[in-house]
């Protein structure tokens, strides 16, 4: 049996880089999808609103773990190689897109109605209204909850371990298999996750306080 050593900790830290990479992929993909979903949710067209809210209901009503399995095995069905990073990236993107879409819809709706009316009076078209008037203001409202949601993304990347993607949680299991000191190892893993997430939580709270003070 191996003794828990500095090398093991180094291995965990290297794996933590993959947690960060996967989080960034999920956040980037989720942002694009989330923006589309949010805009569809506030669209004038009932069909688009329906599709977007159906999508949100669907994703928020199924566990991310099942989503991971579906995209992992689904890739095989459409004849692609089963690459855990791709499957994890896709499912986390779908997941983040639904939640960010719902958060951002709230932020868009929080922009006062008078801003819409004023920009109507100025003769801006719908695209200009969004680009110059609504979204810049909605972005300011959206920053605190978005940073808060990033904590969820980082934590949920741990589920990618079940389809064999070696990130922090999987690395913890691997080290545990060779040293068998689960309490120490998983506490280390938890501490690394905490070090990643806690600054985001604090930042989210700070930004929220600042946003409220400004009003």
């Amino acid at each position, binding site marked *: 049996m191996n003794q828990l050593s500095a090398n093991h900790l180094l291995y965990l830290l290297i794996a933590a880089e993959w947690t960060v990479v996967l989080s960034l992929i999920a956040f980037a993909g989720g942002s694009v999808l989330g923006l589309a979903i949010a805009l569809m949710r506030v669209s004038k067209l009932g069909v688009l609103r329906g599709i977007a809210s159906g999508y949100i209901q669907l994703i928020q009503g199924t566990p991310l773990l099942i989503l991971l399995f*579906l995209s992992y*095995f689904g890739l095989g069905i459409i004849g692609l190689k089963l690459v855990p990073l791709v499957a994890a990236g896709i499912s986390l993107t779908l997941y983040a897109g639904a939640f960010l879409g719902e958060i951002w819809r709230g932020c868009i709706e929080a922009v006062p109605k008078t801003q819409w009316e004023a920009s109507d009076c100025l003769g801006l078209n719908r695209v200009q209204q969004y680009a110059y008037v609504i979204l810049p203001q909605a972005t300011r409202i959206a920053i605190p909850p978005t940073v808060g949601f990033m904590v969820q993304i980082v934590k949920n990347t741990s589920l990618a371990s079940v389809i064999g993607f070696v990130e922090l949680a999987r690395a913890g299991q691997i080290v545990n298999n060779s040293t068998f000191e689960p*309490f120490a190892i998983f506490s280390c893993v938890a501490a690394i996750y905490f070090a990643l997430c806690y600054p985001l*939580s604090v930042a989210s709270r700070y930004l929220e306080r600042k946003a409220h003070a400004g009003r």
Partner: protein
Amino acid sequence: MSYKFDFAFMAERWPDFVAGAWLTVQLTVLAIALGFALGTLCALARVYGGPVLRRLVGAYVEAIRNTPLLIQIFIVYFGLSSLGLKLSADVSAVIALTVNMGAYSTEIMRAGIQSVQRTQLEAADCLGLTRLQTILHVVLLPAMERVYPALSSQFVLLMLASSITSQISVEELTATASLVQSDTYRSFEVYLVVAVVYLALSALYRFAFWLIGLGLFERKRRLGTPL
């Protein structure tokens, strides 16, 4: 793409899925009830407790909310057993889910409790209510009514998150899916079925919490408006 979907396994294996879903319900109802009780106590401690107690509760909430549930489950199941405290997978799952639920409901209930105005407490004092009566009727119930939407969506999220307990071989819905797919090799179909079952379960939970809310909050039932 020439994949043929085949759900024939359902004819034979549906009792497995029902059993798995039933265990999911049992685990989560237990964890929600215990976790909510724990969270409420912690929230009271966080608002009315002394500085040491407040700090302790704060540390608990931050520690749980900033680490993944998967790792929490591993620490309870593998970690505690290596320290000599051997727990079955089911018990470990309930403990981990309860501790997790407790932290989230602490934060939610704290927001509710802090929204109860001081004058309400003074009025309760004047009416001669005991401390326990005040906490129950003047603080907790109105606090819960205010944060009930957030609370019930957190409960549904916990039900979905309970799928993670399959990783320590708790035979709930997701673990059932893994078992059936390894027998039938119909992975995609199996997880599709389970996804639909989870969707149905979350609709069921939402409906149940709506009913509980109606029963609990008399004012809302009579006037139809939130507090």
